């Protein structure tokens, strides 16, 4: 089934931000750090510091006041990074879709790599999501290691600025193959 050895060689440190959820998913994230589900098996540490984290767990539909902080946290995280939208309302807006003070879903503001459904989501789903995120994290790391094409003209496609951009496109390339 899962080749866990591969994933265990990673150490995803998580950053958690609540962008307006009902706390249901947040307590499930806490529960998945607790003994029964123990995310630390994968090397997860809840750092709470954007500068040292790899995985950004966002819960909640983005409210007007939290969107600024959300983008700020995302930009403070160094590459490679993976964003997981935890719970239905952070994926698409959920039951809060179309409410007045809510932007439906996290991917209006920052690119989301993994969507975890559920209202409220359960620790198993969070673990599934983190395992999925580890795959993407590894791909992104490899993408970043690729040498720069120095002798070509620095067009938008392959300049240094766009390394991040290409790292984001990892998923789409797989689709073609």
């Amino acid at each position, binding site marked *: 089934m899962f080749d866990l050895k591969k994933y*265990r060689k990673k150490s995803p440190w998580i950053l958690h931000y609540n962008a307006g959820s009902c706390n249901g998913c947040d307590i499930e994230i806490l529960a998945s750090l*607790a003994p029964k589900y123990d995310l630390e*098996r994968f*090397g997860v540490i809840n750092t709470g510091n954007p500068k040292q984290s*790899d995985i950004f767990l966002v819960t909640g539909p983005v409210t007007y006041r939290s969107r600024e902080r959300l983008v700020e946290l995302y930009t403070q995280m*160094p590459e490679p990074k993976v964003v997981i939208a935890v719970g239905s309302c952070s994926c698409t807006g959920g039951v809060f879709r179309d409410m007045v003070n809510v932007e439906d879903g996290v991917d209006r503001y920052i690119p989301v790599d993994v969507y975890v459904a559920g209202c409220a989501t359960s620790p198993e789903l969070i673990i599934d999501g983190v395992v999925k995120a580890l795959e993407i994290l590894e791909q992104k790391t490899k993408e970043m290691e690729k040498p720069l094409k120095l002798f070509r003209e620095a067009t938008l496609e392959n300049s240094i600025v766009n390394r991040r951009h290409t790292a984001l496109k990892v998923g789409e390339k797989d689709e073609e193959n």
Partner: protein
Amino acid sequence: MIETLLILFAPLIGGLMYGFERKLRARMQNRQGPPLLQPFYDMWKLIDKQAFIVNPYHTILGVMHFITLWIVVAFIILGQNLLYVIFLHLLSTIFIILAGFSVKSIYSHIGSNRELQAMIAYEPILIMVAVGFFMKHGSFDISVIRENGALLASLFLLFLAFLMVMQIKLKKSPFDATEAHQEIVGGVEVEFSGVFFEFIYMAKWLEYAFVYLLLMLFAGNNIFLGIGLFLGVFLLVNLVDNATARIKMKHLLRIVLAIGLTLGMWNLIGLAYV
């Protein structure tokens, strides 16, 4: 030859200790815990990561902290003067404190402040330990201490005081207010990222090597006592970590200075007059 190898691999040995400790702590908390080599996976990941440089002094001071600590550990392994070692270790701590003050983050400042206060608490005790060894052997040289017999019995009160210092240096509760993840998000290390955080992370491993090497000095030339002491104290430190909450800085200063200094003084007076 063996010393050179030991010096080269000192951070790795510390890393192994740290990994084992994470596993042990997880088991004490009734969970499975990360794999044994997790600190090294963390290390590889941090090398791959992008690094943000806040300002050059901050990063250089962080790297200096790591290098000085390595030299400290090297000096202990080579059997140099114990007093030098302690003062050089002080220097490395000052580097990290300066690094904390060199950025704007308020958490970093508080962390540095607390680190300074903690230094006031533990530094006299470390010096007293050195003085205790000097009074017994007439020399500060670590090689001399290693050649002679175990001093655990005659320096027992100092040993107890040293156990408190270990909790501070290894950032274990109850004396982990300097790091205090829930209050100040790690204190001085808050602004480091990527490969520069790597140095701080590896400095933590060296801190393990430093503290446990100092501990082994109490066993002198008795290798079995040394191993026993290491295992026993390793377990004890983690058990205490799992049985206490973090106490505040002012309590830390009060407890460590009052109890530690008293114990140390009694021991030194005893050594001088008995």
